[in-house]
């Protein structure tokens, strides 16, 4: 990024200190952020934190209830559930990031083009968008996985594709609202190219809503990954994600309910954190915008 780009971003974005100050005042969002950071740290330092080898099965300890050795009990193959959940956090988080990167990678440029150019380009992109959004997201993801074969990468690519129209919509909306601003016309009058205007003047204005949308999509992608892996269409053994742990614990739920409940709780809490952080960012950015108007 060149110095001028940075400058433009600094002008268009809220002063960071103000945004952070407002975000920090939102107690729910801050607590969620702390929890999420802790989960991320657990994922990074998994090998040091896991009490057992997540892959080692002990046939003498099958489906043990929680005890001093296995804090969350052991699964149907006698593996430590806590260690498996700790290691699976890597899969689940990386998979969500992968899906969101694909969704933004497709949705951001299309939304910018659609909103900025308008006219028939916008019409074509929007109609395609409407049609794509008529498919139930999870069913479209299942179908795409069926076409390319089950694997975690395929599942997350499918989810990224399915979510791209949502990103595109948000970006297009923000682009439309800044397109008519005086400074855009001024930039055009001074001979800036469309590409330059989009990158330096439109993009910074899209950042706020885009960050909010991406944060919420992280949670949605995590849910979708868990769902597909639960169905056996995502991560394939011996790898495991939170969803696949839940899926493999479910048939034995009556005999040993703790693994199912633990995996479900971890997924729910993480998704909740993403949603609440998204709400927090939206409120912090929004207040700035209202004050600036």
């Amino acid at each position, binding site marked *: 990024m060149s110095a001028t780009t940075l400058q433009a971003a600094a002008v268009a974005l809220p002063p960071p200190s103000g945004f952070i100050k407002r975000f920090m005042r939102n107690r729910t969002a801050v607590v969620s952020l702390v929890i999420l950071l802790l989960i991320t740290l657990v994922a990074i330092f998994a090998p040091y934190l896991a009490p057992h080898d997540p892959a080692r099965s002990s046939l003498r300890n099958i489906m043990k209830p929680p005890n001093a050795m296995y804090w969350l009990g052991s699964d149907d193959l006698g593996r430590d559930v806590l260690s498996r959940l700790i290691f699976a956090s890597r899969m689940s988080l990386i998979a969500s990031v992968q899906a969101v990167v694909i969704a933004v990678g497709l949705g951001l440029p299309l939304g910018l083009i659609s909103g900025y150019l308008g006219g028939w380009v916008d019409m074509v992109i929007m109609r395609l968008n*409407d049609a794509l959004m008529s498919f139930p997201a999870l069913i479209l993801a299942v179908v795409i996985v069926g076409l390319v074969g089950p694997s975690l990468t395929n599942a997350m690519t499918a989810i990224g594709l399915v979510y791209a129209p949502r990103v595109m919509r948000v970006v297009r909306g923000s682009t439309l609202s800044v397109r008519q601003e005086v400074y855009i016309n001024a930039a055009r009058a001074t001979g800036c190219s469309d590409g330059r205007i989009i990158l330096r003047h439109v993009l910074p204005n899209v950042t706020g809503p885009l960050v909010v949308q991406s944060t919420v999509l992280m949670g949605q992608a995590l849910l979708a990954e868990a769902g597909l892996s639960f169905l056996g269409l995502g991560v394939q053994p011996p790898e495991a994600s939170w969803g696949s742990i839940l899926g493999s614990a*479910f048939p034995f739920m009556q005999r040993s309910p703790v693994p199912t409940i633990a995996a479900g709780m971890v997924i729910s809490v993480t998704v909740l954190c993403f949603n609440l952080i998204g709400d927090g960012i939206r409120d912090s950015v929004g207040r700035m915008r209202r004050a600036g108007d």
Partner: protein
Amino acid sequence: MSTLLFLGRRLLSAIPILALVGLITFLLIHLIPGDPAAVVAGDNASTEAIDAARHRLGLDRPFLMQFWTWLSGVAVGDLGTSFTSGRPVVSLIFDRLPITLSLTGGSTLIGIGIAIPMGIMAALNRNSWVDRLIITTTSLGIAAPEFFIGLLLVLVVALNMGLLPATGYVPFVEDPAEWVRRLILPSFTLGIGLAAELARQVRGAMIDVLARDYIQTARAKGLSALAIIVKHGLKNAAIPIVTVLGLQIRRLLGGAVIVEQIFAMNGVGSLAVRAVFLRDLPVLLGVALITAVVVLFVNLLVDMSYGYFDPKVRQS
């Protein structure tokens, strides 16, 4: 007359989207990177087996001819034949559609049944602890995955308490009472997310309505808060509610895939999941197309209901 015109215009506007949905379904198999023939042939398949699969999929013919074959089939309601069962895809899906629609219908009823009283209670006690409790509950309901709620319900209500059956589906025509009994747990599972989303909308709409002048008038006339809500509030809140229902139908159909799996229901979702493992591409594409058509149809109904709830829409 104006109503008919309104309906006609809405129907017409749905046609291009429907055509695009069909086109996307056809193109899916061509646009997705990778070789569907290799996926269909299975792991470690020989070149001959892959070629045979390609022939069976019709992918060895010229692109335009494939499109023409597909288009003329769809026009007469022919979505091809299942690779594994040899039955027409359309009849396979229509056999199971009642199960999935019972489930989504049941969860919509449960969603509305929970959301309206919750939303009203939150709006009437705005900013009190009741309101905060309801908002917190809805956040949890939105974040918790369907399958987790379903598994907990199976564990507690079906397995431990033995109140309701944990799995299976009984058609309505066979035994209406059993049909309801078997649908309760799955509909709850799928309906909780919807209830949470709807409750927020109802709360917002109610707060909005309660601040209007005519509500003040009604209150000044001595009507109780509850009577005002039933007489004026609900009808005005109907539009945001049906809008959310229209948006949520996609989530419900998607969630049904997982809920059907948990409760061992043989719906369209289970059909799709099985088709992935059996590499039955015609069935998969058929499910995509038909669920999208259901979504479009529901949204058409939502559009039409605007005309019913708000006469101004009809005239515009």
